[in-house]
């Protein structure tokens, strides 16, 4: 089983991100379960969403305490929420930021993880460019696909299109693809 935890703030599409990831996995014939934890609807409040992906039916109904991957959609959470709780040495960490790890005070984290598994992506900027809005979730999904290979970019874009039509769909797909390219320029290695 591959367990992903997504952190962000209300309004950034955190819940949607986990959901789309689960849809992408479903498309590939896998079993996937996505669910959120949050309080009453409130923009800006910390939101955590989970996604489990496996080859057999998933029965567990508890939060993910030892994630195989963590996606941080909003770096301002670093001081507020324990986003890296339970992260082991082989975990993937995907950060939405243009700043350096040192700037963010994450030098210690870099030491704990495998260097090729800790990646920063300017997802908000890519979203602004391709979608016209600072919604980083689709971009981060593309980056996730490239980083972990757990799902393909194709599955991600199909999941996006199933959810968003027209220009919004196009923009999100473009952002996801751009992010994918940033993390893994050579798409031939898209599948792990």
């Amino acid at each position, binding site marked *: 089983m591959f367990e992903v935890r997504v952190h962000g703030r209300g309004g950034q599409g955190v819940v949607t991100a986990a959901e789309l990831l689960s849809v992408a996995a479903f498309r590939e014939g896998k079993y996937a*379960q996505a*669910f959120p934890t949050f309080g009453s609807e409130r923009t800006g409040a910390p939101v955590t969403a989970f996604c489990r992906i496996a080859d057999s039916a998933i*029965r*567990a*109904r508890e939060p993910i305490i030892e994630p195989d991957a963590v996606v941080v959609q909003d770096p301002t959470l670093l001081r507020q929420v324990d986003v890296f709780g339970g992260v082991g040495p082989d975990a993937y960490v995907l950060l939405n930021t243009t700043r350096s790890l040192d700037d963010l005070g994450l030098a210690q984290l870099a030491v704990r993880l495998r260097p090729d598994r800790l990646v920063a992506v300017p997802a908000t900027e890519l979203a602004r460019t391709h979608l016209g809005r600072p919604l980083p979730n689709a971009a981060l999904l593309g980056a996730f696909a490239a980083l972990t290979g757990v799902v393909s970019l194709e599955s991600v874009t199909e999941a996006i299109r199933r959810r968003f039509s027209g220009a919004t769909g196009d923009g999100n797909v473009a952002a996801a693809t751009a992010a994918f390219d940033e993390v893994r320029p050579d798409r031939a290695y898209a599948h792990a």
Partner: protein
Amino acid sequence: MRDQLEGSQGIARTVARCRPEVISAYPISPQTHIVEALSDMVRTGELAPCEFMLVESEFAAMSAAIGASAMGARAYTATASQGLLYMAEALFNASGLGLPIVMTLANRAIGAPINIWNDHSDAMSQRDSGWIQLYAESNQAAIDLHVQAFALAEELSLPVMVCVDGFVLTHAVEPLDVPEQTEVDAFLPPFEPRQVLDPDDPVTIGAMVGPEAFTEVRYLAHAKQMQALDLVPEIASRFTQAFGRSSGGLLRRYRTEGAETVFVALGSVLGTIEDVVDGLRESGERVGALGITCFRPFPLEEVREALAGARRVVVVERAFAVGIGGIVGQNVRLALEGLPPVVHDVVAGLGGRAVTRRSLESLLADVRAGRLEPGRLHFLDLDTGLVERELQRLQERRRSGPHAENILRDLGAVAARPY
């Protein structure tokens, strides 16, 4: 059709295929996605003929459902927590009048303190309302139970509530098999009421009943609900024949054959418990799990039979009766009266606190080591230090402040922590 769907969406689509004629619902977390989806389907005409009433309260929602059902219309509503309490009077009215209303209850804790997360205190508070209570272990079960619920309700002329853990199930996205319209139509015939308000054949419904007849009327209500003990399995087997998968029924056994210890629970926590059972079985422990799907009426004989061979039973429940102890545990003890198994009653997952695999494994270790007194209600993952400090505060000062605030301050939950 099999698709990756949010639980609420799956439930809404399935309910729509059951062809309700009147839906009256008032929004409350975490049921909102269900009623929003149904509202859309009525607007677009996907669900027709159906009237969607935007009522002013949950009390009005159930009241409108009562009026609609008495007119012979298939009526549906959904609520949670405070909303269920607000319609409490109407719940008893609906069951007393024998109206086959179906309701989704997105299980959520009851305040004060206000809490929007999952536990079973809402459903449990109304366990005596005369409604049949079915608990879904997963979203697929939730979907399947709704189809069966309409059949059950209309056959018996009793209202049925399908309990679906709020957020945990309602907001989880997973692979779901939503039945096709043709399949549901074949399984669920049009509603044929046992009593109906008809100008061509007028009847008076809801008259006062005095001491001379009340006892008998109430006995009949009890007897009628008990009939569900036969009907629920029958409908479940019809469902299996029609849809090709096992679903519903009174109980669900998981690896209970030869089990020394059996967990008993309701709802989604069973998924996690089954993972625990598998893990423990792998290390040679003889553990099993019993899921109770039909809680009211309570299947005493079936529970007795399922647990009789165990050495110990660990009930894990998400509500409790203040002032006395467990609820499910109490019912299970009754079922096992006179039999050897020792029953441990554990309260877990209140107000949305996660019930984790780790905690359950640790609980079982405690049970086996005899660290858990069977007669006392045990609160899983209770922070006794916090509680003791708060009790101390209460003793020292009259105005000691609100419990929750003091506890959160103790926990440092309001202060930022370094990563």
